[in-house]
């Protein structure tokens, strides 16, 4: 079996190298934790940092590739969503089943467009190819990089944040964390860990490329616009 072959080649390599190097001297895992000099500021400061980073990614030349909104109430959140649904280029809308979608995207809002809930395989994956907007929740948002962490846990569709040209993320203040390391802490604190769902994805800004002469182009293959709606 090739597994045994490779592993025994590795063991032999490690043993051989340990002459004058010592099995017991194999280097230990580094002590302590990764450095995090940015502290743990309050929601206001985290949001300001998030917004700064988000805008730096969303504004390019004279174009705009999404917005991050912070609202004070569910009613206000519904207004923001309604404004997106009213756009001419948004007719087919999909959303992952979750509490925030239930709460914000009311039956009334859903009638404004052709609405699909990605709650079963028939209404997810390839079925989302013609969607104009995908609505998801997230596990956390990072202030330092303006990233959102989405997952497939609890029937979250992977295609909903990927195929539609516009992606709207619904989130709550308590989900704001300083940076990437805290997102990983959040994953590690889930009850099933180290079992993980099939996919987590950090999403930071719109899909982009700079392969041709280092000129930034948005979008590449994923969404053109990213919207984040932060609720209390």
């Amino acid at each position: 079996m090739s597994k045994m072959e490779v592993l025994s080649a590795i063991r032999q390599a490690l043993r051989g190298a340990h002459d004058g190097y010592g099995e017991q001297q194999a280097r230990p895992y580094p002590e302590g934790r990764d450095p995090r000099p940015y502290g743990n500021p309050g929601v206001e400061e985290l949001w300001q940092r998030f917004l700064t980073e988000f805008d730096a990614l969303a504004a390019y030349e004279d174009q705009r590739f999404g917005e991050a909104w912070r609202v004070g109430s569910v009613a206000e959140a519904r207004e923001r969503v309604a404004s997106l649904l009213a756009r001419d280029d948004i007719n087919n809308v999909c959303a992952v089943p979750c509490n925030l979608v239930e709460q914000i995207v009311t039956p009334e809002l859903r009638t404004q467009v052709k609405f699909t809930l990605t709650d079963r395989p028939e209404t997810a994956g390839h079925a989302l190819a013609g969607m104009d907007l995908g609505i998801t929740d997230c596990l956390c948002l990072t202030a330092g990089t303006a990233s959102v962490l989405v997952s497939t846990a609890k029937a979250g569709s992977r295609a909903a944040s990927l195929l539609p040209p516009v992606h709207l993320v619904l989130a709550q203040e308590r989900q704001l964390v300083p940076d990437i390391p805290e997102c990983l802490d959040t994953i590690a604190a889930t009850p099933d860990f180290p079992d993980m769902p099939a996919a987590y994805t950090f999403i930071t800004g719109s899909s982009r490329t700079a392969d041709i002469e280092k000129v930034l182009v948005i979008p590449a293959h994923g969404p053109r616009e990213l919207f984040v709606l932060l609720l209390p």
Partner: protein
Amino acid sequence: MTPPKTCFRARTATSLTRAGLKERVQRNAWSGHLSREEAVAELPEYEDLRERARAIKLHTLDHLDRYLEQFADKVERNGGNVLFASTAKEALDYIVAVAERHGATKMVKAKSMAGEELHLNPALEAAGVEPRETDLGEFIVQLSGEPPSHIVTPVIHLTRHEIAALFVEHLGIEYTDDPQKLTAVARRVLREEFLAAPLGFSGGNFLVAETGTLVLVENEGNIRMSTTMPRVHLAVVGMEKIVPRLQDLAVFLRLLPRCGTGQKMTGYASLITGPRRADDVDGPDEFHVIVLDNGRSELLADPLKRPILSCLRCGACLNACPVYRTVSGHAYESVYPGPIGELLGPHCIGTDHGEDLPFGSSLCGACTEVCPVKIDIAHLLLHLRKEAMQTSLDLVWKAGFGAWSLVAQYPELYRTAAALAKLGLAALNSTIGEEAVPPPLSGWSHSREFPKFAKRSFDQWWDDTEGGTKDE
């Protein structure tokens, strides 16, 4: 001596004479270098992260068998498959077998240097599977029939006009050299392929032993597409890409985007753990990870070279290297160009004729300085040069000095040998010309004039002038 085709210096001549190439690569790679500088300068913990990244990697390599087993167990328990491949061929056979089992005729491919190392595309074509590169840069080099020239930005060597011409020729579009429009064309063409292809292929930036997770970092979304839409996801990953714990990504996800592309975070970073679960609504049904040795255990066996395996493939050393920026990637004729390629080449990783790559460096140390995991590239290059000389020239060196010491002991023999050498050189000069001294002396005379033999030897002069006491 090395035949010219496999000689790095000879190959650089081709690169240096291609119109505008040097200027273009110089400009693009330098701008990559500068954005990396800015991005790491913003990070107060940068040096601490480097130190920790290095420590984690070296620890992992010292216990590589244990972590790989843990990873494989975890993937299998999540319903995925792991193949350990000693050689490229084993990996290729497995991929082709999976394709055949699914009756697949197409595969969408995300960018993977390990995939390049396998020469996967020709193998797929031979098996009747059409590979489609989906990273914009890789898509372009696939159209042009060239290999990529940089491990992060594959078409760093092409102008927008050259790219536009390729699109006109292969995709039948109206000529445009607007990167925005060209990208839109690729998006349209590839979107259909993503939705239709039964097989998706990717590399991997990290494997997490603790959770059985494959980590993929990108900007375009083509990796997400290739690993989400097709029914089957196949990944090929060098066995050194493993880290012990999920939280290690807290270090590596802060370093890799900054050092690779000068970004705080890339557009997407996917943590893929097995195929879709029973209650998932989408994602691939099958998940295969191929853990590739292909020469890596040789590096592991040498404590001095082992740190080479901690490389993240960020490409920072390419952009920092004055030689890379001058000669561009193709001169290396290796999947891995630049300083890191020079370390891997002599070990047949990325090329099978990379023995002289360690000599393609000015040893200025810029590569060592920018490496996020603190691989001492410059000193390792020096070490590899020494090794290369010991293995290839040792015999010539010993034989040469052996002959010299013999000849120098016997005056008659010495005189005869000197006379013969003089005759031989004169014969060469008259037949093929001044510079045509035989190897290994040609290494010297290639760029310098070979010193002329005196008309007579010292012995003769001594005799003629009676020890210098008599005028001639």
